[in-house]
């Protein structure tokens, strides 16, 4: 993976959700955090598919929690952002800022 890799829109949203949730980040909390903040319904499948992709790229790491009765005896899978993931978020932010700099988006294009 090169240093010029940027995060896709949903990848970006997921990493930001993980950073917000810190050590409470697992499927349910990530999905709810995105729904609350973006006001759009997200499927749990989309969340896991993106998290798996981010883990393959080395941007997030996961570990299993203990099984709980509320989950039918299934364990939670917790996620956290790696240093490489934080660097990717910063890079993406920087690129977006550079691209929007000087643009009066509300007045010019509304």
């Amino acid at each position, binding site marked *: 993976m090169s240093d010029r890799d940027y995060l896709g829109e949903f990848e970006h949203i997921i990493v930001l959700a993980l950073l917000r949730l810190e050590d409470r980040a697992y*499927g349910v909390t990530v999905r709810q955090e995105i729904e609350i903040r973006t006001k759009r319904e997200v499927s*749990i*499948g989309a969340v896991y*598919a993106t998290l*798996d992709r981010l883990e393959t790229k080395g941007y997030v790491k996961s570990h299993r929690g203990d099984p709980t009765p*509320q989950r*039918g005896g*299934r*364990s939670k*899978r917790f996620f956290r952002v790696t240093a490489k993931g934080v660097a990717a978020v910063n890079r993406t932010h920087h690129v977006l800022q550079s691209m929007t700099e000087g643009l009066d988006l509300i007045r010019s294009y509304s």
Partner: protein
Amino acid sequence: MTSPAGFVRPPRIAAWLVKLFASTEEESILGDLLEEYSDFASKVGVAFARRWYWRQAVKTVAHFVRSGFCAAPWSTSIAAIGGFLLLRFVSGLPDKVLSAVTDRYLAFWSTHFEAYTWMLNGMLIEHLIGSMFVGCVVALAAKGREMIATMTLALILCTLMGTAVVWVATHGRIEVAWMLWSSADPFAIVMGGVIVRTRRLAATTWLSKA
């Protein structure tokens, strides 16, 4: 699985579909869905929770189908096309066997006509079993993407049949029985995929428990 007091079971078919299509992490996904489902059921009501669960299941399955195909378009296509060619070969076999048997024992069949018609009906079932066999082979070849590969093959067949139906409709009369019979092939192929996927899931669960 432990069941706490007041446990409300989520829609079984929806949970089964998620399990079938999730290539990895079906345990975490089903656990997350169950946790939120129980939460909704206790706060908003079971009817709302069931609707939410179904909506999540359908969206999740659609996402896995799309992302599964995009992740390995070539291997999935090769498995489906290989299955299509195999189906062409397998679907002709019952006819060949029937011709060989009738030619060999012509005198017997002419005196036992009922048995002959029974065998003709049996051929239709053989045809379905053949399609299911092809579905199993395709699913075995597409490890981890059993459902996507068999659904791709079923989609190819449906497209061809749709074209045939349009052609027949413009050139003559369509028989409903023929249409229904034609749609049984893709269904049998997907069923083959379901069988292989279910067997693999059971084997994985057994290995993780051992």
